[in-house]
C-alpha cells in the first residue's frame, strides 16, 4: 500500500507556505488597471455620455474585484492544502461567475447603466490586463535576470524595475 511508503505524501497534506505569486500578479494588474481605467471611461463617455462612463467604471471595478478575489482564494487555500486550493478554485469559478452575473443583472435596468459599454469594458479590461501582465510574466520566466527587484529603501530607485 502506498501509505506504507515513508516517502509517500498525501496531496491533502501538501501545501505551500512560501510567498504567494498571485498577490503580486494582482497588485500589478490593479496598478495597470488604474492606468487603463481613465482611458476606457473617457472613451465610453465620448461615445455613450455620462451613463457610459459610469457603466465603464463599474465594469472596471467588477473585473479588478474578480481578480482580487480569485488571487485571495488561491493564495489563502494554498497555505492550507493543494486539494483545498483546487476545490476552492473550481467552486470559486462558479461563485465568481455568478457574482458577476448578479452584479450585471441587478443594475441592468438602472438609469445610469448602458449595457454595451459595461459588457465591452468587462471583456476588454479582463483580456487586455491579462495580456499586459503576461508580457511581464513571460519575460521574467524567460530571462530571470530582468525580474524586477524589491527596492530596499523607498528613497532608492531601482533602474531595473522598469
Amino acid at each position: 500500500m502506498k501509505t506504507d511508503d515513508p516517502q509517500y505524501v498525501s496531496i491533502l497534506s501538501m501545501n505551500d507556505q512560501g510567498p504567494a505569486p498571485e498577490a503580486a500578479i494582482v497588485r500589478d494588474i490593479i496598478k495597470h488597471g488604474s492606468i487603463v481605467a481613465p482611458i476606457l471611461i473617457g472613451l465610453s463617455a465620448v461615445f455613450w455620455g455620462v451613463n457610459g462612463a459610469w457603466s465603464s467604471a463599474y465594469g472596471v471595478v467588477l473585473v479588478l474585484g474578480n481578480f482580487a478575489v480569485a488571487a485571495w482564494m488561491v493564495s489563502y487555500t494554498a497555505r492550507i492544502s493543494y486539494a483545498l486550493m483546487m476545490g476552492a478554485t473550481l467552486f470559486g469559478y462558479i461563485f465568481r461567475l455568478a457574482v458577476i452575473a448578479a452584479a450585471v443583472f441587478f443594475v441592468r435596468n438602472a438609469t445610469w447603466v448602458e449595457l454595451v459599454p459595461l459588457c465591452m469594458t468587462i471583456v476588454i479590461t479582463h483580456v487586455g490586463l491579462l495580456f499586459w501582465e503576461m508580457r511581464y510574466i513571460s519575460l521574467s520566466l524567460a530571462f530571470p535576470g530582468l525580474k524586477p527587484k524589491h527596492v530596499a529603501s523607498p528613497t532608492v530607485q531601482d533602474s531595473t524595475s522598469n
Partner: protein
Amino acid sequence: MEALTRIAHASIRVAAELTPAEAKANAAAQMAGLAYGLAAIGPGIGIGMIFGKAIEAMARQPESAGMVRTTMFLGVAFTEALALIGFVAFILLKFA
C-alpha cells in the same frame, strides 16, 4: 407522477396559448440561457485540467511551485475570459 403530468399538460396548454411573437421571445430566452450554460462548461473543464496538471507539477517539483502557480493563475484567468465572453454575449443578445 400525477403532479408531473399535470405540470406538463399545463406547460403545453400555456405554450399553445402564446402568440407567435411571445413564443419566439420565449424560445430566444431559453436558447440564450442554454448558450450561456454551454459557454460556461468549456472553461470549467479547462480550469479543472489546468489545476490538475499544476498540482501534479507542484507535487513532483515543490521547488518550482512559485513558477507553476504564476503560470497557472494566468492560465485560469485567460480560461475564465471565455466564460465572461459567453456571459457578455448572452447579456447583449438578451437585453441590449
